[in-house]
């Protein structure tokens, strides 16, 4: 069941009505848990055991960590949780990658390996709920939260359907306190919920799905198109992936509000970032902060000297890349981002505190050029993950750098610049004023008119064929 599907628009009202009609904490939360599991099972009912098993392990680990008498024993139970979560993730997500590369390596050194293919179906949202499980046991281990006594409560924290499939990755410290009593839904939450659902759906159904119709064929056969088309395809993909993923997060945040829950912000106009470090503070915030708090800091962060800091940064981002997908494209993309972050840190440390540099960096022109430069670096990284072949990737990178083929088809439908312009406008309208969404500041009538216009755009002017959210594959 996709957020942009008819099934979801039948499922959601039923769950909302029953949830709000039910009285008492237990009844409400048990029903919400059942609905969340049903939502999960709507893709593949057989994989319910994955989420059940990891929930049981993490729940038990939390209790055992808390009850353990010695730090050594606590560490042992923590290891159980981390290994089981990562083990599941590795088994489902990386088996094909590991086996495929192992066979290729064996073949390269002359070992006869024969015809082997391994096909593993990836359970939906496994990358997200395993990270939630790990963050919970780590927080219990670090003493930030108390272990949850009720399995039902813990299972709901893991499986809460609005964010189950593609985040935001919710921390136990953020979510569990909201579960003490069923949070009452305020009038503000009702309307903000409507706002985020409409905005998220528009981003997904109107912008991302239209752009996909241009991006997909160009990246499938880059050799058939000229350099100008390549450049537009890269910009379009940058806009598409932002609208697709932030659209999902917006819908998740909006739906959660209708149940009275607040989910963390996941995107903050990332293409207004003036540096790669700032970009990662604005893009998939719940993942980048997770990586910082649970991986980068666990590796030592910046506490063990500058060389180690750079190594930690690059290692964290390479693993972040691997989290996104089991292929060398993602590994390279993660490494590329790690190198950019390390480079930015180096440059930042070298210049900070020098009056001329501070003055230059404070200038509006510098900020504008920094935003532009950061965007090109990010876009170049996106080409790594979007390209289907290394040859195609190289071709598009050349075009992005200003070279590339000329004797090929130029195909840029009018809607592509218009849609990209809409994304830029959204960034400028809200991002420059540093508000979460400028529409929320409009007078009621104008706001309502904006929502009506969004509905018209989605229904009458959308492409009509909705694609799965890109982040489902992660």
């Amino acid at each position, binding site marked *: 069941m996709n957020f942009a599907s008819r099934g979801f628009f039948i499922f959601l009202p039923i769950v909302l009505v029953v949830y709000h009609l039910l009285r008492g904490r237990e009844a409400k939360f048990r029903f919400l848990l059942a609905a969340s599991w049903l939502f999960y099972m709507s893709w593949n009912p057989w994989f319910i055991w994955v989420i059940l098993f990891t929930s049981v392990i993490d729940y038990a680990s939390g209790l055992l960590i808390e009850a353990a008498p010695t730090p050594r024993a606590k560490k042992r139970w923590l290891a159980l949780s981390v290994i089981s979560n990562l083990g599941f993730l590795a088994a489902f997500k990386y088996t094909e990658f590991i086996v495929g590369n192992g066979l290729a390596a064996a073949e390269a050194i002359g070992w006869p390996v024969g015809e082997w293919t391994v096909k593993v179906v990836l359970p939906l949202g496994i990358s997200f709920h395993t990270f939630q499980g790990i963050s919970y046991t780590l927080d219990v281990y670090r003493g930030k939260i108390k272990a949850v006594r009720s399995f039902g409560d813990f299972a709901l924290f893991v499986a809460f359907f609005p964010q189950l499939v593609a985040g935001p990755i919710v921390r136990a410290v953020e979510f569990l306190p909201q579960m003490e009593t069923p949070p009452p839904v305020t009038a503000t939450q009702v309307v903000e919920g409507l706002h985020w659902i409409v905005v998220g759906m528009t981003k997904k159904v109107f912008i991302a799905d239209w752009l996909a119709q241009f991006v997909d064929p160009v990246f499938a056969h880059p050799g058939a198109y000229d350099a100008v088309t390549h450049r537009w395809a890269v910009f379009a993909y940058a806009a598409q992936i932002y609208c697709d993923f932030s659209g999902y997060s917006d819908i998740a945040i909006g739906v959660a509000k209708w149940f009275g829950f607040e989910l963390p912000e996941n995107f903050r106009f990332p293409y207004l970032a003036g540096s790669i470090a700032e970009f990662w503070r604005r893009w998939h915030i719940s993942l980048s902060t997770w990586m910082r708090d649970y991986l980068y800091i666990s590796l030592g962060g910046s506490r063990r000297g500058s060389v180690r800091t750079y190594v930690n940064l690059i290692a964290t981002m390479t693993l972040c890349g691997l989290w996104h997908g089991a292929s060398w494209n993602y590994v390279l993309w993660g490494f590329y981002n790690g190198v950019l972050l390390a480079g930015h840190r180096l440059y930042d440390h070298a210049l900070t505190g020098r009056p001329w540099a501070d003055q230059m960096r404070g200038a509006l022109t510098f900020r504008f050029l920094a935003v532009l430069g950061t965007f090109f670096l990010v876009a170049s990284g996106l080409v790594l993950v979007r390209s289907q072949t290394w040859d195609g990737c190289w071709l598009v990178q050349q075009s992005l750098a200003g070279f590339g083929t000329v004797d090929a088809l130029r195909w840029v439908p009018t809607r592509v610049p218009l849609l990209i312009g809409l994304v830029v406008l959204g960034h400028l309208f809200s991002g420059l004023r540093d508000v979460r969404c400028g529409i929320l500041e409009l007078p009621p009538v104008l706001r309502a008119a904006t929502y*009506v216009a969004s509905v018209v755009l989605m229904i009458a*002017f959308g492409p009509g064929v909705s694609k799965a959210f890109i982040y489902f594959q992660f």
Partner: protein
Amino acid sequence: MNPSSRNRPRWGRVVACFLLGLALLDLGIAAFRDTWSAYAPHPYAYRFDACRRGRWDVVVIGGSPALYGLDPQVLAETGRGYNLALPLATTAEVYHAARHALQRPPRLVVYGICASDFKEDRVEPCGPEYLMDAADVVVWGRQRPEAAVWGLRKFTEGRLERAWQLFRYRHGIRRWAADRVAGWWPDAFPETVAEARDGLARAEAWRDGHGFVSPPPGPLTCLDTLKQCGCVQTHLSYFENYHIANYLSYLYRILDWAERSRVQLVLVDMPVSADLEEKMVPRAFADFRACLAEVESRRGLRVLRPTRAGLGLTDADFADLVHLNAAGAARLSAWVRDRIAEEGERTP
């Protein structure tokens, strides 16, 4: 006063204005529904409406072989004819279309029937969505329990779509907007503008051209040419696992409806290409013809059986394996008109 209670009326205004805006928009869209539906005419909804609104002497019913093969104006001669045949229709769709669209019964109904109308494992979505009422769905569900939920879902979707005008006319609105924009920015949305022009042309043909759609002459509508360039399938999965069961009962319903409405009904066993009938699925056509003969003898039904040899139809008269092209349709329509005239119209 706390801030949230102070803000409440403002929040309420947003929701109220949003809902009111949607309602007003729907009313506005409904006021121009003819415009939207002309830009994106649905072959079922549009033709069904066009037929129901008019008064006709002769109406052709059936599936796509009848849609492309029988010209109602030729059959009606001096009177007014309409072709209500619907693409992909089974006998169930044909029955529901005739019963609901022909509230003012014509003098003569010609059913261009084909083996595919009876094919049991076909379950078409447009029937429940556009042609059936609730009672029809119940009957249909009883006859096909395996597809009852599916049919109910399609019926409900169709009804809900009708309740929300923005959704119902979304394609027409998009095409209309592209057509308007093309006035001052011709290259902006060429594909949508082409769709808009095509929609308008089809709507005009269905509205003013009496519903008959003949494949225009050309190499792509001539089986002969298509065969020469190897563009014809050698295997047609559409007719696989052919057997006759529930859809036969709808033929009896059509006969009952014609009797009740005192409408003259003639069945035309639609000619198909020799390749299809003799080489690819001969058993399907044999079963179909045996079944038709049995109904004919049981109910005294009037069936015309034009043959390729009798009409002089060759591959050059077919658009593909199943459908006639303009030349074939002209020959068949004239032949049917003459046979009906020769035999004299029986009074029911």
